């Protein structure tokens, strides 16, 4: 009885409902998997993915498109991950290019932009990964004077 009430309450608030897998919508794990394929980045945070997915779930118009993207991209070879627009074109998904662009942008910027921007993450925004170990993310630091020489994380061939 107690379990049942809890279950219904959870559904009522839409949390589990939004993350649950059904035939017509994506689950949280699938959303993160799709995000990894589109961005070409592994190790995306499930917690951030869950927040981001809720944003899309609130927009029913995108449900079917997300599902189709996932279904047709889930078996794409890793070498093609992140390689837009070819990744979409090859599978007849170009019409979902705008949605894919938005999803990728959110992961990179840490914000789903637009008229009602949604904060997703600061330090885990993908835009900081290319300069990881080279430039500290603002507000973080490497200690007094760490800036005097070429960063320790820089490889010889890049110098």
């Amino acid at each position: 009885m107690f379990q049942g009430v809890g279950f219904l309450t959870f559904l009522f608030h839409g949390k589990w409902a939004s993350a649950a897998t059904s035939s017509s919508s994506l689950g949280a794990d699938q959303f993160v998997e799709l995000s990894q394929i589109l961005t070409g980045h592994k190790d995306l945070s499930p917690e951030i993915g869950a927040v981001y997915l809720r944003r899309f779930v609130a927009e029913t118009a995108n449900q079917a498109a997300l599902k189709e993207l996932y279904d047709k991209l889930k078996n794409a070879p890793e070498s093609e991950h992140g390689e837009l627009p070819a990744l979409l074109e090859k599978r007849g998904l170009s019409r979902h290019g705008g949605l894919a662009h938005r999803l990728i942008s959110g992961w990179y910027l840490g914000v789903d932009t637009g008229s009602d921007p949604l904060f997703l993450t600061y330090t885990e925004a993908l835009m900081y990964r290319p300069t990881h170990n080279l430039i500290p993310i603002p507000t973080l630091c490497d200690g007094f004077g760490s800036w005097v020489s070429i960063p320790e994380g820089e490889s010889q061939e890049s110098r």
Partner: protein
Amino acid sequence: MKSEAKSKKYDVVIVGSGVAGSLVAHSLVQRGISCLMLEAGARLDRGQLLDRFQNAAVKDTMAPYPSLKHAPHPIPSRPDDYLIQKGPDRYDSQYIRAVGGTTWHWAAAAWRLLPNDFRLKSTYGVGRDWGLAYDTLEPYYGKAEGTLGVSGDKNEDLGSPRSHPYPMGPIPLSYMDSTFSRELNRVGYKVVTEPVARNSQPFDGRPQCCGNNNCMPICPIGAQYSGDVHARKAEGAGTKLVPNAVADFIEVDALGKVSRVRYRDPSGTAQWAVGRYFVLAANGIETPKLLLLSRSVRTPKGVANSSDQVGRNLMDHPGTAMTFLVPKPLYPGRGPQEMTSIVNLRDGAFRKEFSAKKIHLSNQVDTNGITKELLAKNLYGKALDQKIKQLSLRRLRLDAFHEILPDPENRIVPSESLSDGLGIPRPEIHYRIGDYVRKSAQDTRSHFAKIAAAMGGEEAQFLDDFAPNSHLMGTTIMGTIGKDSVVNTDCQTHDHSNLFIASSAVFASAACVNPTLTIAALSLRLADHLHRKLKSKVSVGA
């Protein structure tokens, strides 16, 4: 009236708790002078500001500082919510209404003005003279550097003679800044280490800079000076600090002296602050607004405004910029946000024709802007990451501050029709950037191109937007003649012997460097002046 009856009469009532007001209060209260400091905004907490910035969806320069209904301030993402722009040019400067004021958010550049900056008219025939000589203010520059904690290089001549050493040695230059300095000095520019109110060693209970690269909008660790330091010290020494107290009227008695200041709490309830002396330290917009709002039978044009100069001569440092790509990574974004400046364009005979300027190298990486730019070009995956890395490590930015001349037509007036959450008229800005600046900006462009070439740069992009730099100056201008100025060289209003102004509002020239150290020096000098007057029990101006 009931609340006034209960009011204590303070030796000094100060309006505004930024660096100016807090330094005046701290300097006086330590010497036994009773001070009341009114602050329109709230108290801020550094940890909370940092959280707010990191978690903001829109990370503009004011992201940590929400505008309050009872004490609004400009916000870049909603630029027309508070300041009313009447043009023809926009004046989108920002300031923070909070305990500690706008130095919560600054680059800590702690420049002294040059001797010629104080005598522009007599030297070059343009603008105005202050009436105050550099030599007179010089000891207070030293005192201000010691008070705020300025790191600087004693071996570099910045053109402003010094009688005191910097309290701290310089913060070592970044790899990018030392490369830039070497290359530019080689082709005839004078690149110096910027003196900064940022700790190169633990100082005054605050830590050494560790390179958070977030000086603006908020230093996470307090290694950079901010006005709250002396607001807290002043309060700890006995100053009565009242936050959320919005001054909206100054009363003048039959003898022409200020008798009290009315302030409102967030609900609108009014109280009166009573004192012997009054110091307005509410920045270059809010101070003239308050003076102009204080119209009465005795002051029909507003307080301190017999000259009709209150609110006029509004200045800032119109900015232009250039970004360019250097051939090898120089790794900007490591260390503090500003470290070096080009200073050989700050003074010279050219000032007869066009404005002086300071050019500085930005040590920030606009990762968000770069990423948006590349996404807009539909770059994804590995190509996107490679390009983000390339631009982040190789794109440099130079910014130029230009000196604008005081022009009475550039002004702030209280709006006749639009008011804030307390019903207080909002500031209305009339602002035109004239040929003196525009001609200089053309010259700046040629220097930008020369600099880019010296660095082997390519893909130069110029931003000639004349963006203001939140340096609010001139609106209660200093001068020796009461007919055309608001305060005298002691920062005392010509009209009211017990009313003083501590602010860049008194600047008679903008020069081309950040104003805070000069504000601090003037404030400390004013405190000494008030102390002498109070201790001698001689009425000021009598």
